[in-house]
């Protein structure tokens, strides 16, 4: 039967709330729906009245620019944030028990909402989880010092039977974890500590975690941002299977081709307002981009003319031996050139460049020669790299990139701080540089007073870019620079990087995004198991060629 | 007091003359509190000195000196003295009386000759020798001096040590001496046998009370702090201070006729030497020396101060 709980202000609001546009009224087969949802942080309203409904067995994508409010919306849906206004309906239990309730005694039933209306106060994440609504956060939500299996079952640990029910059933948890990971074609050992996993593996653990929870509604907030195509494919396989079982899936991504591939319906939001809800089949990728950005986009990848043969060498690396790699590595980079490093996850791109810039010790006893603009330099600390005009942007923005509990200006200036300081820090200069960067990088926040952790994921990435580029480096190394960035901003960033190259800076892009590599690079170095397997240029740069080197099918002509 | 000095003298001469080779090595365990404040520092100093002297004079004698920072640490020390050093005799100045009663009894049951110093155990019949300081007496002597000096009426403040039995006994002795007089104790506060706390507490007393005729600081470390506070407030003229213990700095002042500290009350840390010597005497010569040796707390005045002034002692 229908249970009705009505919160204070909602009585009158509900009558006749049938929101006809785009068929967004909570219909009988809605698993989870909201109407007129508003959410504010402090005095700042972030969502201005969103209608959204998730049907059983559908993949419903949410599309929007960075900071549009996607994460906020799904956090409200999953009970992680309390909404300020609006109604929320859940219907997971009836759906799965197969009972489709008819009329109730209230007006809501007359509205054909066979779901339960839940007050904001009651919709805690625990309640949501009990109702089978599971959210994978955009930012990781793992206990670093615990193992994979321990994380997967955190909060819902398995225990033995009988007397053994006092104790954890570790073996079963490990076995099941291994099974869940296998479903995702992921081979990490469930006993590994999460702190030692790569970001991609952490994401796989996050996904595996949901499998342990038997979700009716699965919400994935940018799960593929840190995954490679192969891992993404495994995820989509899983999504297809769950959809077939009637699970409702909310999927957020900035990769439009993924949305095209997997979504049934698409809800677009812009600046906290609902743009509309559309059947996926009716939208092309260009439509999607236009709807979310609200204007026509210029071409995504700007044309950067390859540097002239005579352009001087900006960076030259000889015999750099990364700890753990089998052989030393050498390469060159010319001014005005964009060199991309591609490869599978864990192929050693990050390790190579972190070692180069002095963030990690090289293999002990190894000798390398590094020339910057023709002068030999020793980069034993990251500060040496900075002093030689090199900037390196980490791919782990949460763990190593930003101080999440500190203000935006403080974060922005941390790397380039000396530029703003004589004896004391010139906060005025700092502030104006920050204001300029907010402009340049289009960092969007509703309130400049927020801490970095409260920025939307994409805007955190932009802030990180701004931070590392503030020193105006001549050699820019960016590791996964557009991770989690919306298509509009991506294009901005590509144009920005292109301008840098055009101005004679040398760029290295470490990326798992194949189209980015192909679209931007003059040359592509493909890494395999810690070393460069091959370097492609011009017409050789194709997805096929890159994959052949990356997977070890083809090795560098020795 | 006469009995005590004579005995010490007798003991020392005997030991220095001890030539009779001992048949088997004898071990005396000495367990005292660590040097955590002035008086205990003096105690440690005298114990070290006496150990060197006894061992030097008696090749067959071994003195093991251990120090503790708490009652339970001292109980550990006793166990170690029994289990490891297999001591024949124990000289102990208990950190606190009650908690060490059991552990000392255990040692005693193993046939160890027990000399207790200063703080009596809470059970009678355990010790063979008791060299007793007399805390109540010390308080009483101080109280009586203040009462007399003030002609039976005046306002005083009291700075106490730490909340322990010793402090209680001294304080009670002091208060009983004042009984019936018109000497009014304005307030008493703990100063933890510590110079800094003595200074701070006295500063506050001086702010609080516009009229103070005398201060009982109970301990010379506290007295040092009190002196500085009084000087800072420039109220030297109106009051005097009675400390306690016999610290050389204070005794020197008494000797020099400092009006601020006209007297001191002796509570000698050298009592440990007496106890160690008596015990050694017992071990070596088997002289019957069981019993109690109560040390007095004489008033140190300008006249007799020279007898109590030991410039080389750390206390």
């Amino acid at each position, binding site marked *: 039967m229908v249970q009705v709980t009505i919160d204070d202000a909602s009585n009158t609001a509900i009558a006749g709330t049938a929101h006809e546009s785009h068929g967004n009224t909570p219909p009988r087969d809605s698993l989870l729906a909201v109407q007129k949802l508003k959410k504010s942080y402090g005095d700042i309203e972030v969502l201005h009245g969103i209608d959204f409904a998730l049907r059983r067995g559908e993949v419903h994508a949410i599309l929007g620019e960075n900071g549009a409010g996607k994460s906020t919306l799904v956090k409200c849906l999953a009970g*992680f944030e309390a909404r300020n206004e609006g109604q929320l309906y859940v219907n997971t239990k009836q759906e799965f028990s197969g009972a489709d309730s008819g009329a109730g005694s209230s007006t809501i039933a007359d509205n054909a909402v066979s779901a339960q209306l839940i007050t904001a106060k009651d919709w805690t*994440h*625990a309640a949501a*989880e009990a109702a089978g609504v599971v959210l994978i*956060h955009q930012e990781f*939500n*793992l*206990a*670093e*010092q*615990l193992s994979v299996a*321990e994380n997967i079952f*955190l*909060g*819902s*640990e398995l*225990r033995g039977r009988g007397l053994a029910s*006092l*104790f*954890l059933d*570790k073996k079963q948890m490990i076995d099941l974890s291994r099974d869940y990971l296998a479903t995702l074609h992921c081979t990490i050992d469930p006993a590994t500590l999460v702190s030692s996993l790569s970001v991609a593996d952490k994401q796989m653990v996050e996904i595996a975690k949901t499998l342990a929870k038997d979700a009716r509604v699965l919400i994935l907030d940018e799960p593929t941002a840190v995954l490679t195509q192969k891992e993404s494919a495994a995820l989509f396989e899983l999504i297809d299977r769950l959809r077939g079982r009637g699970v409702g899936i909310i999927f957020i991504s900035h990769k439009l081709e993924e949305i095209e591939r997997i979504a049934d319906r698409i809800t677009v939001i812009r600046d906290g307002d609902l743009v509309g809800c559309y059947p996926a089949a009716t939208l092309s990728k260009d439509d999607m981009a236009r709807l979310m950005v609200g204007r026509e986009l210029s071409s995504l990848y700007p044309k950067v003319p390859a540097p002239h043969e005579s352009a001087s060498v900006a960076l030259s690396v000889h015999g750099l031996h990364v700890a753990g790699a089998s052989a030393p590595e050498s390469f060159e980079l010319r001014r005005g050139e964009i060199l991309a490093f591609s490869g599978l996850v864990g192929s050693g791109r990050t390790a190579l460049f972190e070692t180069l810039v002095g963030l990690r010790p090289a293999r002990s006893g190894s000798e390398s020669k590094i020339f910057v603009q023709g002068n030999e330099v020793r980069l034993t600390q990251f500060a040496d790299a900075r002093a030689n005009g090199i900037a390196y942007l980490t791919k782990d923005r949460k763990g190593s990139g930003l101080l999440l509990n500190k203000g935006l200006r403080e974060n922005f200036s941390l790397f380039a701080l000396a530029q703003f300081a004589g004896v004391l820090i010139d906060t005025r200069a700092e502030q104006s540089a920050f204001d300029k960067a907010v402009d340049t990088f289009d960092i969007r926040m509703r309130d400049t007073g927020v801490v970095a952790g409260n920025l939307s994921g994409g805007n955190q990435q932009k802030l990180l870019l701004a931070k590392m580029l503030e020193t105006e480096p001549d050699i820019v190394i960016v590791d996964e620079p557009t991770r989690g960035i919306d298509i509009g901003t991506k294009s901005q960033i590509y144009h920005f990087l292109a301008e840098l190259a055009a101005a004679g800076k040398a760029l290295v892009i470490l990326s798992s995004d194949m189209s980015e590599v192909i679209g931007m690079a003059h040359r592509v170095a493909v890494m395999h198991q810690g070393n460069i397997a091959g370097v492609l240029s011009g017409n050789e740069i194709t997805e096929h060629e890159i994959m052949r080197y990356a997977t070890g099918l083809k090795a560098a002509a020795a | 007091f006469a009995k005590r000095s004579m005995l010490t003298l007798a003991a020392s001469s005997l030991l220095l003359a001890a030539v009779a080779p001992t048949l088997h090595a004898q071990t005396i365990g000495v367990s005292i509190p*660590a*040097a955590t404040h002035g008086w205990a520092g003096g105690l*440690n100093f005298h114990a*070290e000195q006496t150990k060197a002297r006894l061992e030097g004079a008696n090749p067959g004698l071994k003195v*093991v*000196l*251990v*120090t503790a*920072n*708490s*009652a*339970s*640490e001292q*109980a*550990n*020390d006793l*166990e*170690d*003295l029994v*289990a*490891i*050093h*297999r001591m024949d005799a124990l000289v102990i100045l208990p*950190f*606190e*009386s*009650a*908690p*060490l*009663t*059991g552990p000392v009894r255990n040692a005693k049951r193993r046939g160890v000759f027990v000399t207790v110093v200063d703080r009596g155990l*809470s*059970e009678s019949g355990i010790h063979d020798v008791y060299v007793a300081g007399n805390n109540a007496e010390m308080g009483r002597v101080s109280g009586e001096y203040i009462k007399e000096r003030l002609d039976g009426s005046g306002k005083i403040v009291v700075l106490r040590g*730490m*909340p*322990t*039995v010793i*402090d*209680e006994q001294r304080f009670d002795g002091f208060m009983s001496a004042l009984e019936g007089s018109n000497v009014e104790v304005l307030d008493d506060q703990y100063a933890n046998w510590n110079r800094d706390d003595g200074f701070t507490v006295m500063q506050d007393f001086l702010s609080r009370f516009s009229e103070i005729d005398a201060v009982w600081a109970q301990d010379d470390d506290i007295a040092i702090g009190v002196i500085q506070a009084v000087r800072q407030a420039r109220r030297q003229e109106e009051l005097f201070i009675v400390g306690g213990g016999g610290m050389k700095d204070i005794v020197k002042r008494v000797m020099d006729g400092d009006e601020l500290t006209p007297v001191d009350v002796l509570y000698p840390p050298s009592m440990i030497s007496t106890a160690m010597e008596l015990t050694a005497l017992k071990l070596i010569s088997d002289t019957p020396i069981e019993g109690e040796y109560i040390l007095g707390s004489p008033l140190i005045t300008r006249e007799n101060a020279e007898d109590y002034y030991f410039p080389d002692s750390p206390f």
Partner: protein
Amino acid sequence: MTKVDFKTAGPFIALIALFILGIFVNDAFLSAGNVSNILARSSFIGIVAIGATFVITTGGIDLSVGSMAAFISGCMILLMNALMAKIDSFVTIIFLAIVASAAIGALAGMINGLLTTKAKIEAFIVTLGTMGIYRSLVTYMADGGTLSLNFTLGDVYSEVYYGTLLGLPYPVWVFLAVAIIGYVLLNMTVFGRHCFAVGSNESVAHYSAINVDRVKTATYILQGLCVSIATIIYVPRLGSASGQTGILWELEAIAAVIIGGTMLKGGYGRIGGTVVGALILTLIGNILNLTDAVSNYLNGAVQGVIVIVAVYLQRGAWRAKN
């Protein structure tokens, strides 16, 4: 494989090194009496430190344990002395005192826990405050002096400290039991798992539907219970309580925990290590009593150096792993 062993073995290596030093310094070190003394002594700090392992693993700290021990001792003694007039059976009296002790310990721990979690005051401040409070209370109860257990009763009760089973003193058995229970609780139950999670990342724990406040409060209650158990075997040893009882136990307990490999910042706790840590601390004191090579004034310095070196060796071994 060997690397993992190294990590776990860290504290053990330090322990063994000290043991060898002990043998080297004095023959009597290895005597049955001495070894059993060391074990019995380390049981106080050891038991308290096992409670502290939970608190620290969960990211908290408890500075009040020493004065809590003094307070509980005082309450037990007052209660037992009072019951002497009313109840004939010594065993009943002791039993009631033990029950009361556990209740007070749990309550005191709960107060620390609730002030930390509900009033949201930092654990360091809360327990610094309660440290002063309990110590004052026991001083007050003892009127500035010492509370002593009734003599005849004390004789009976002292069996709990001095009695032996299979050649080992009872406190050692109690220590062992507490250690085993602590190990199981921390490593094999849901509660233990949640302690790790809360210490590792509170918000993750929160989002995993773990009641963070409850877990934290529970660790303080556990700590209180451990203090109570330590007190139950402490009281028969010294038969008294005063403002000086249990002084600096908090530092010793925390040191034992950290020497054992638990991280002060939370998220990583090891009961076995804590046991070894407590033994190491006791051993250092014992070894200093074995020899007079070191001036008594320098005992503290030697202790300090050994603790630092012990942890260095251990962490060094640990680092070799990565």
